[in-house]
């Protein structure tokens, strides 16, 4: 594999793992959400994301092989998506922070020089626009809701805030792809992202926490303890009964 090909596969895994891990996380809500309708919303989000992962990881290699037979250190997702669901507020904060970023990224991916990514992003950007919109709606209702919902949202922001800088990190792999026009440069929309998030938080009568020491490393396989606990139930069946079919 040539260097640009290796970088492309790495990038497909980063995007695919973001969607896969958040999809798996959200599916933990199935049967536990605060209301039946919210249960369906979160399950729909999860299915959208796992669908994205299937396409991205399938383009990188074999999707099932990558999803079920890699270890923690080989996952390339950002740390934000592996964070625990916490309560509904923390889940909504994580969704707002991630979907806003993913939406801005996918909008730009539709202009990529890579034909697969253009086709992928043109479809997925609509799913993600809805995730972003609904996460914003819930943020406003919970932030500008009761004292308890506002407190829980503030706690969710405190938990998730330090994982934002990783979304805008550019390493050598990403720089290679930015130079060849395959990947958008996330730094080009960081200001837009920050002001979009601030806009939603202001409407929700919430404040972003003071910037904390950023935590990086997901793109290099340095994950929190949480990822292993996500993979264990996700991979158990295929690890125990390799190639088992539904």
């Amino acid at each position: 594999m040539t260097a640009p090909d290796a970088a492309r596969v790495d990038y497909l895994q980063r995007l695919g793992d973001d969607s896969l891990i958040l999809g798996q996380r959200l599916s933990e809500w199935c049967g536990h959400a605060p209301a039946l309708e919210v249960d369906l919303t979160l399950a729909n989000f999860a299915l959208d994301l796992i669908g994205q992962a299937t396409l991205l990881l399938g383009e990188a290699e074999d999707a099932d092989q990558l999803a079920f037979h890699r270890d923690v250190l080989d996952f390339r997702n950002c740390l934000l998506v592996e964070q625990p669901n916490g309560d509904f507020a923390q889940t909504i904060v994580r969704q707002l922070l991630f979907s806003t970023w993913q939406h801005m990224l996918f909008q730009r991916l539709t202009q990529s020089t890579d034909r697969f990514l253009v086709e992928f992003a043109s479809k997925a950007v609509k799913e993600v626009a809805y995730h972003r919109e609904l996460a914003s709606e819930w943020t406003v209702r919970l932030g500008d809701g009761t004292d308890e919902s506002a407190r829980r949202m503030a706690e969710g922001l405190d938990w998730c805030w330090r994982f934002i800088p990783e979304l805008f990190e550019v390493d050598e792999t990403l720089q290679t792809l930015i130079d060849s026009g395959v990947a958008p440069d996330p730094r080009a929309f960081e200001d837009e992202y920050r002001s979009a998030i601030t806009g939603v938080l202001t409407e929700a009568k919430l404040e972003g926490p003071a910037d904390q020491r950023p935590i990086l490393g997901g793109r290099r396989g340095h994950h929190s303890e949480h990822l292993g606990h996500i993979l264990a139930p996700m991979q158990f069946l295929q690890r125990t009964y390799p190639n088992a079919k539904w």
Partner: protein
Amino acid sequence: MSSGDWPLWEVFVRSKGGLSHRHAGSVHAPDAQLALAHARDTYTRRQEGVSLWVVPSKEIVASDPDHAGELFEPAESKIYRHPTFYDIPDEVKHI
């Protein structure tokens, strides 16, 4: 938070352009905007629709079942009100 605290909304789905919205069911939601989102997530996830209406259930005025006899039974014996005495050309759809 539980959906028991939320008002009920009736959901109407237009399955494709040109057809009427039809009642699909109901959802709980705290307000109109989220009622639309819940309706979308509950009733259009398999491409069932191209347009949605939601209406607060409490705004629906319903006929009294106890008056069903006087309201509906008189129509039973009036077959001349059905357009069954015409030949419909095969090309005419949606009748």
